């Protein structure tokens, strides 16, 4: 089934996402 | 929500119940999950797994996914502080299709203080039936057509 989700990572448990500094930025000069 | 430990053991059994369901083409939409054996009512089927993110991070992602043409329907809101995003990582629970007349339902289970999403069977599921649950998407302006084909289909997912 992962063939149907390109560059998909299979997980066994939920993974807490570590946010980037620019997480909320749409554009950053 | 059931904080007791036997729930924890059950949730961990989830990993070993994958054989119960298989991934195959769906008549509802693309691909779906099917029961490989009869499933009793209120039985745990699979946990919906993905990345735990904050709701505003989910909002920003939804804008980016839509801009890239990626469906944003793999975002599952747990509560007002946490969303599970199975768009780029998770398990095959993300392939369970929606139905307006589902044979399963999603429940938030608290295990060791952590909220997790578990899909349960609603009624007896016969071998070969497609697993479905009601996504309960919030009502939005731009609609997504519902293809479940159930007699009481609402016509749209949101």
């Amino acid at each position: 089934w992962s063939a149907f989700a390109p560059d998909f990572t299979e997980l066994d448990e939920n993974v807490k996402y570590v946010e980037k500094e620019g997480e909320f930025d749409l554009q950053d000069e | 929500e059931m904080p007791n430990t036997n729930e924890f053991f059950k949730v961990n059994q989830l990993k070993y119940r994958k054989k119960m369901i298989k991934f195959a083409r769906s008549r509802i939409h693309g691909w779906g999950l099917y029961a490989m054996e009869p499933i009793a009512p209120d039985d745990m089927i699979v946990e919906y797994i993905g990345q735990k993110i904050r709701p505003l991070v989910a909002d920003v992602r939804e804008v980016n996914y839509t801009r890239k043409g990626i469906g944003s329907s793999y975002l599952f809101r747990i509560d007002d502080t946490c969303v599970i995003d199975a768009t780029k990582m998770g398990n095959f629970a993300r392939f369970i299709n929606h139905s307006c007349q589902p044979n399963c339902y999603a429940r938030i289970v608290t295990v060791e203080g952590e909220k997790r999403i578990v899909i349960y069977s609603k009624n007896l599921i016969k071998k070969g039936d497609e697993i479905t649950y009601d996504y309960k998407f919030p009502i939005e302006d731009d609609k997504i057509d519902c293809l479940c084909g159930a007699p009481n289909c609402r016509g749209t997912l949101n």
Partner: protein
Amino acid sequence: TVTLSPNDRAFQLRLMEDQLTVTGNEGYCVARGTHGVMKGTWYYEVHFQKQPSDSHIRIGWSQRHSPVQACVGYTKFSYGWRSLKGTKFHDSYGAKYFQGGFKEGDVLGCLIHLPWNQFRPG
């Protein structure tokens, strides 16, 4: 007396006893002051005390409607200034503002000027 508000802030931030020192980690979130302003020229200062490696802060001005579970400057209701490269942000757009940015140990000032127009109050 103006302090950081124990209520108008993200729950995951730690506010010290004096309500003048706030500590955050993981993702950006906001603590606002106990008082707002709506006309005239106002100024406050921040002493940037601790900056663990690879961490940054944003300070600025925000209306009450700007969400606290994001950074200041995320929406059109707030204006932020970032320690990384000194970029200014408004409505999620970052623009050049103060070359080089700022860091731990600096004292930073934020001024807002709200000209009062008696024909268009509020």
